[in-house]
């Protein structure tokens, strides 16, 4: 319970500190130390009257200490840390006249702070991997050790990644405020992409022994809910949250007792999380009619069609095919094209799908991806070409990086092997 509260308060406390004192990088360290102090003290001594104020006080004191040490060190080295102000600071943002009263009225909102932090952590000067790590720490309140574990990299590696990311944010001199209106949509796109990556990392697990790292999917959903509270009218935010809920709803049916993957068509739909499906369907149904649907809404709509089908055979494949076509029109994404090929095969027969795969095979972005070969194997199996299917399953297994996926693909291949080979 303490941990939930701390994670909720973490971005608010960091926001308050950076707004008041600046020093995003050092303030972030100070907040982590305050969170750690709270995690050990609160369960023993009880919750303070205002947990948020307690954290801000402790973190501010720690920030002062850290800055003192930094400045003393710099003075010993006789180095002056002067930085030029970027253009961004010198011109008042076009959408927010910088008057004192305006600044004051905008300064006290915790939710604003959390949003500003999200925009900072997803700054375009950072790589997606750094954006993800920094978001999980500064906004999600996760420790470096937790993040390292989730991404299965050694803790020192993650520490370096986060430290460098913070340094870069500091050097870029981004002021602590929301991006200008003209830039905000593009920057929000980066924020949503980061949440999407966090979710996928947790759900799809590109490497390692555990297929689900529920911690990451749960965190992605929590952060998406938070962004939705901050921007309730944004349809793509709603779409992304819906997509996560509708996908995560199938998690209980996705693996067998031995941890092996079960494809959607063979899953026990009774295990799907009905509450998540209902929430996701409502979100996407509400968002879709409001303007041209973006990619997250379209993917959510596709997930909803799967989730709402009482049996695999009753899936509305023509409708799903049409939605993938809309998606392809927005972005030339080989994974979308792959899924589109599956939908085409299901709606019009395996050969139509295989024809589309043929065109995709020349695309370097997917030709070495296990999913292309897994789909080809599946469609060949549907068409009755068992030898071709077996070879493709084997090839897919070689390329797959997660153990359960590999095991699943090998078992499909083995099933198709002729009796003489068993």
């Amino acid at each position, binding site marked *: 319970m303490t941990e939930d509260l701390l994670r909720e308060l973490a971005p608010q406390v960091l926001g308050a500190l950076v707004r008041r004192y600046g020093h995003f990088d050092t303030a972030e360290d100070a907040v982590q130390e305050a969170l750690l102090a709270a995690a050990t003290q609160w369960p023993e001594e009880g919750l303070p009257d205002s947990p948020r104020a307690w954290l801000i006080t402790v973190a501010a004191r720690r920030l*002062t200490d850290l800055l003192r040490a930094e*400045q*003393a060190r*710099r003075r010993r080295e006789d180095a*002056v840390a002067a930085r*030029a*102000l970027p253009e961004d600071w010198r011109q008042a943002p076009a959408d927010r006249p910088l008057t004192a009263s305006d600044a004051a009225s905008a300064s006290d909102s915790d939710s604003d702070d959390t949003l500003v932090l999200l925009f900072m952590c997803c700054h375009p000067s950072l790589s997606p991997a750094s954006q993800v790590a920094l978001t999980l720490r500064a906004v999600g309140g996760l420790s470096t050790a937790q993040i390292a574990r989730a991404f299965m990299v050694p803790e020192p590696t993650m520490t370096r990644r986060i430290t460098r990311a913070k340094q870069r944010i500091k050097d870029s001199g981004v002021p602590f405020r929301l991006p200008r209106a003209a830039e905000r949509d593009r920057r929000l796109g980066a924020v949503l992409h980061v949440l999407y990556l966090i979710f996928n990392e947790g759900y799809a697990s590109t490497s390692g022994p555990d297929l689900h790292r529920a911690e990451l999917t749960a965190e992605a959903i929590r952060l998406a809910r938070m962004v939705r509270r901050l921007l309730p009218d944004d349809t793509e935010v709603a779409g992304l949250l819906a997509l996560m809920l509708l996908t995560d709803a199938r998690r209980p049916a996705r693996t067998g007792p031995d941890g092996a993957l079960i494809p959607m068509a063979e899953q026990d739909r009774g295990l799907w999380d009905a509450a998540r499906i209902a929430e996701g369907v409502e979100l996407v149904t509400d968002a879709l009619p409001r303007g041209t649907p973006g990619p997250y809404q379209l993917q959510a709509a596709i997930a909803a069609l799967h989730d709402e089908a009482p049996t695999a055979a009753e899936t509305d494949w023509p409708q799903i095919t049409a939605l993938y076509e809309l998606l392809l029109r927005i972005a030339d994404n080989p994974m979308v094209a792959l899924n589109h090929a599956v939908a085409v095969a299901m709606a019009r027969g395996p050969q139509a799908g295989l024809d589309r795969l043929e065109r995709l095979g020349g695309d370097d972005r997917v030709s070495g991806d296990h999913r292309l070969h897994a789909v080809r194997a599946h469609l060949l199996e549907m068409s009755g070409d068992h030898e071709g299917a077996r070879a493709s399953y084997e090839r897919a297994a070689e390329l797959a990086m997660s153990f359960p996926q590999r095991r699943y693909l090998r078992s499909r291949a083995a099933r198709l092997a002729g009796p003489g080979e068993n």
Partner: protein
Amino acid sequence: MKYMILSYASQRDYDEMAGKDTGRASWTPEALAAMHEFMTTVNKELTESGELVETRGLAAPVHTRRVGARDGAPYVTDGPYAETQEVLAGYWIVECESFDRATEIAGRLGQCPYPGDLYADAYADIRPLIDSSEDLGF
């Protein structure tokens, strides 16, 4: 007439008040409470007499940004002060009948209790505020 009473402290003084041991006499919770009570009393007196316009304390010197300009572009230096450099730590703006009354108020503030002989050399400055540039004669 309005006057500004300015008091000074170094980063080291702030550290000591935050409970850090710097090898000099240290601020115990009791000493801090006594100071707090004294300040509250004096500020209340000044409010009641109608003389207090505003009083504020400043965050520790370590939280200072200095802005200059180089080749026409503004630049920022963080934490420009040395540990023991005394810098503005707080101020009172009082509106009272005379410089002497403002001096009296500053003297009263100077009676604030502190541990040991930490601030035996402490002082405050009193500066008259001007109403318009004409007061300056230019």
